[in-house]
């Protein structure tokens, strides 16, 4: 079985309009197609794993975004689907995020462990 590592670094780009993160979404779809997928959240994207996000309330004139993105729940669904989700521990610390704030099932790893993660996969997709 092919193993792919998907690295998500740019965060909150188009997530309100898309109602999700496009790379989390395509990673989930690729997993459904068969391959083993690991997602690594780094830089600002580590915030995707923080539980309890609320992006509701957006309106333009009388048009409302009635179904906002729920990125923390999307991360949980990825994990339920069998996708390993890792976050860079130092990137959490740089942003004052404690591991206890993360959704369950996310694996913090150190920056020095990232190269090893590359070696464990057949391809690395750095979006």
């Amino acid at each position, binding site marked *: 079985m092919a193993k792919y590592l998907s690295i998500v670094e740019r965060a909150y780009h*188009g997530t309100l*309009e898309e109602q999700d993160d*496009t790379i989390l979404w395509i990673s989930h779809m690729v997993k*459904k197609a068969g391959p083993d997928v690991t997602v690594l959240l780094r830089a600002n994207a580590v915030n995707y794993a923080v539980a309890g996000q609320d992006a509701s309330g957006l309106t*333009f*004139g009388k*048009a409302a975004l009635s*179904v906002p993105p729920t990125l923390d729940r999307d991360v949980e669904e990825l994990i339920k689907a069998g996708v390993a989700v890792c976050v860079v521990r130092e990137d959490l610390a740089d942003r004052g995020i404690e591991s206890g704030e993360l959704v369950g099932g996310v694996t913090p790893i150190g920056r020095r462990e990232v190269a090893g993660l590359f070696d464990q996969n057949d391809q690395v997709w750095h979006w």
Partner: protein
Amino acid sequence: MASGKTLTISVMDPPYESATTTTVLRVMDAALRKGHNVNVFAYEGAVALPLRTQVPHPNPIKGTTAEEQHHPITSAFISALFEAAAASGAKLDWVNCGMCVDERGATEWVDGVRRGGPGDFAKFAQESTNTVVIGTR
């Protein structure tokens, strides 16, 4: 009630790829609610924001239909902002860069959007209280 002030915004990013497009729509909404006139010069990929051919899609990850998902389309938001402008008495003028439109074949827009060029942007800036330029990154 119209304030008599005018804000010009230049935006470059296409829909669904950046937070800047949502920010632009939010700034427009806030300005129009205060009665300010708003000019928009859509440059490069931003000319796709008001495309009338946009269609909501379902989400196969969540198993939702397009209706259940209420998938947003930016052109509908822009139409709502034209309606908000009319209700507030302010003016919304949206110009799509004509050459940017042509090279993308992005020619079908919601009502209110018009074709123009950099000369319109220059005129907008000269006639406005201030101009916000939001480039692509």
